[in-house]
């Protein structure tokens, strides 16, 4: 007989969990007690939201569900933004929260919050475990649901009295959920229809989204695109699905995307969406697009097909499986004219030079070119996100950002998770001084865990994205966007024992990058940028 808390830890071990992120409190103490004798490494973050972001970063790099843990009430509530961020980007996560004792539930006692209720809109599924003997079943289901189909966060809330109950433990059973049977293989008839449409098309285009990473289909995507010579554009979540400089890659589409990519979407006669949900930032006018272009939509979540754009050929299933099915039946093609036409739109980036001012776009471009090929770039939200997304040269690394939710304060904690998931890959954070001030408490976590994470803070003393919006849409009425009370980031880093450098002139970039990329251990680079610099 072991306690439910011990069973939770045994389940985590059985699921292959090596690292979890959390913050303790009274209602989760039994689990922490059990964790102390486990081989699982617990990372103490400095605020619960960051535990969720770190778990998300870990999941995106490891390909397995990230796990985070917090106590009842405020601990659990602080997780919500992180959970919602993961949900919006379909990141597999298992969240464990402590809850007040069963007999006190519903009485508004100290640190009680209805977390399953509060998080309901942002989870794939959730459990409030009132029956101790259900724990193993719940844990197994949670990992299964989080990691299969369209991945997402699953929450398990466990009252503290339940955690202490002794149970017979057994984890050797198969999981089967009668209301959950995700489709993997694409319908053969639809696959055939798609191939016929592809054969008939003059200007086919693939739009790859984050779903490519969910099912690890980068190789299959590239193989199919190359075999049939189909140009590829990506969403922000799909960045890196195919190398930036691959001849078939025509960039990121959308409101903040590149002209080449948007021209390709505009000109295409067959648009093949793969693991992309046609979000409003990617496709601003779906009503126009669906009238002009024949659309194939490949997605594991049937609810995404036809939600935002009308689709002629829906294919429900796992992108990796479907791309393999397509490859089996496809014939090699060459779309020479179409590719030539698109190549004309492709222009090498020209960065506007202002004397004595660092162009952040050029800076990102140079940084990414000089970084190791397998670097994980983690961008925050704001102008820095758009600069990074549009100018980062990705080879076989990754680009992580909060795409769907646009959560500021994502980058540093997500980098913590990413680094722990793959310690040998370099991890570089790019954020603004606004977003950094939402997450800078995690410098302590970086120090405590001795993580080699490089942080670039692009500082303009402004909330640049909002300022830009106020400039363009509110007649320059700048309000609440001035960050002048911010600290000296170099001194802040020094307080944590992290070396740093501050640069403000273009001629300093070279040396700073040299230092940043050669330094072992964490490093903070403050890069002063022009407040007038626009996102695009």
């Amino acid at each position: 007989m072991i306690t439910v808390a011990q069973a939770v830890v045994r389940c985590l071990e059985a699921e292959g969990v090596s690292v979890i992120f959390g913050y303790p409190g009274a209602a989760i103490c039994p689990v922490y007690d059990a964790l102390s004798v486990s081989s699982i490494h617990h990372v103490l973050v400095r605020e619960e939201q960051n535990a969720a972001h770190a778990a998300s970063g870990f999941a995106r790099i490891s390909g397995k569900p990230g796990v985070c843990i917090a106590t009842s009430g405020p601990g659990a509530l602080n997780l919500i933004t992180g959970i919602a961020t993961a949900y919006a980007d379909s990141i597999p996560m298992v969240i464990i929260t402590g809850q007040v004792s069963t007999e006190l539930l519903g009485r508004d006692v100290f640190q009680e919050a209805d977390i399953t209720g509060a998080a309901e809109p942002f989870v794939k599924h959730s459990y409030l475990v009132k029956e101790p003997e259900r724990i193993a079943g719940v844990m197994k289901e949670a990992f299964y649901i989080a990691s299969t189909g369209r991945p997402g966060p699953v929450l398990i809330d466990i009252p503290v009295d339940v955690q202490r109950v002794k149970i017979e433990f057994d984890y050797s059973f198969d999981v089967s959920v009668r209301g959950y049977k995700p489709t993997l293989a694409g319908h053969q008839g639809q696959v055939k229809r798609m191939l016929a449409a592809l054969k008939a098309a003059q200007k086919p285009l693939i739009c790859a989204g984050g779903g490519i990473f969910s099912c690890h289909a980068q190789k299959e995507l590239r193989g199919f695109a190359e075999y049939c010579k189909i140009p590829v554009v990506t969403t922000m979540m799909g960045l890196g699905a195919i190398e930036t400089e691959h001849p078939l890659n025509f960039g990121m589409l959308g409101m903040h995307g590149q002209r080449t990519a948007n021209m390709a979407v505009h000109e295409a006669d067959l648009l093949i969406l793969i693991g992309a949900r046609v979000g409003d930032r990617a496709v601003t006018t779906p009503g126009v697009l669906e009238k002009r272009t024949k659309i194939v939509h490949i997605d594991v979540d049937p609810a995404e097909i036809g939600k935002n754009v009308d689709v002629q050929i829906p294919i429900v299933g796992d992108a990796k499986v479907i791309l393999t099915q397509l490859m089996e039946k496809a014939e090699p093609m060459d779309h020479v004219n179409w590719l030539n036409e698109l190549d004309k739109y492709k222009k090498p980036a020209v960065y506007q030079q202002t004397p004595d001012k660092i162009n952040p776009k050029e800076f990102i471009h140079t940084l990414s070119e000089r970084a190791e090929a397998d670097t994980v770039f983690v961008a925050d939200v704001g102008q820095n996100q758009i600069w990074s997304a549009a100018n980062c040269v990705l080879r076989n690394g990754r680009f992580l950002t909060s795409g769907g939710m646009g959560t500021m304060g994502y980058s540093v904690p997500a980098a913590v998770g990413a680094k722990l998931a793959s310690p040998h890959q370099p991890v570089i954070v790019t954020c603004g001084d606004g977003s950094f001030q939402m997450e800078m408490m995690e410098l302590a976590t970086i120090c405590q865990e001795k993580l080699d994470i490089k942080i670039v803070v692009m500082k303009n003393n402004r909330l640049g994205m909002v300022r830009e919006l106020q400039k363009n849409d509110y007649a320059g009425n700048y309000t609440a966007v001035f960050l002048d009370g911010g600290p000296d980031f170099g001194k802040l880093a020094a307080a944590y024992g992290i070396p740093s450098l501050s640069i403000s002139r273009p001629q300093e970039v070279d040396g700073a990058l040299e230092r940043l990329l050669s330094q072992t251990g964490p490093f903070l680079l403050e890069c002063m940028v022009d407040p007038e610099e626009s996102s695009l």
Partner: protein
Amino acid sequence: MKQTVSILVENHAGVLSRVSGLFSRRGFNIDSLAVGVTDDSSVSRITIVVDGDDYMLEQVEKQLNKLIDVIKLRTLPQDEIISRELMLIKVTAKSDARGDIMDIAKIMGAKISDITTSTMTVEIADTAERLQTMLDLLAPYGVKEVVRTGTIALQRGGESITVQK
């Protein structure tokens, strides 16, 4: 356009709030919602009447299907359903009105469930349209209170929605 959706769900706490939360969150309009356990005590059946176009109905179905607790669902073809709703109406009925109200109840296939010196409570189980007729007929007497269960429905013929064991 009104559509009737039958949903088989896991019979445990929190399921109804997930289903109703989804409707409010996604802006789907519910006309009525009725829920009760089925012959299998682990399964409840929810009947929802929604008002919306084909796009909305497709989204209702797909989003409901994403809920892990939803085992199966089907939109019942509008011309092939047997639908019933139970309504209790407490109506002002002094002795001079009783005869008329009893006549109406008889014609409508309703039942008098309670009677006092000044009121009668009428019970009717029928389609939503027939319940409206009943309300219209009783309105002149002074309706004091009305309670309805929401529509439940089954498809005509031999077809059924079942959970595989």
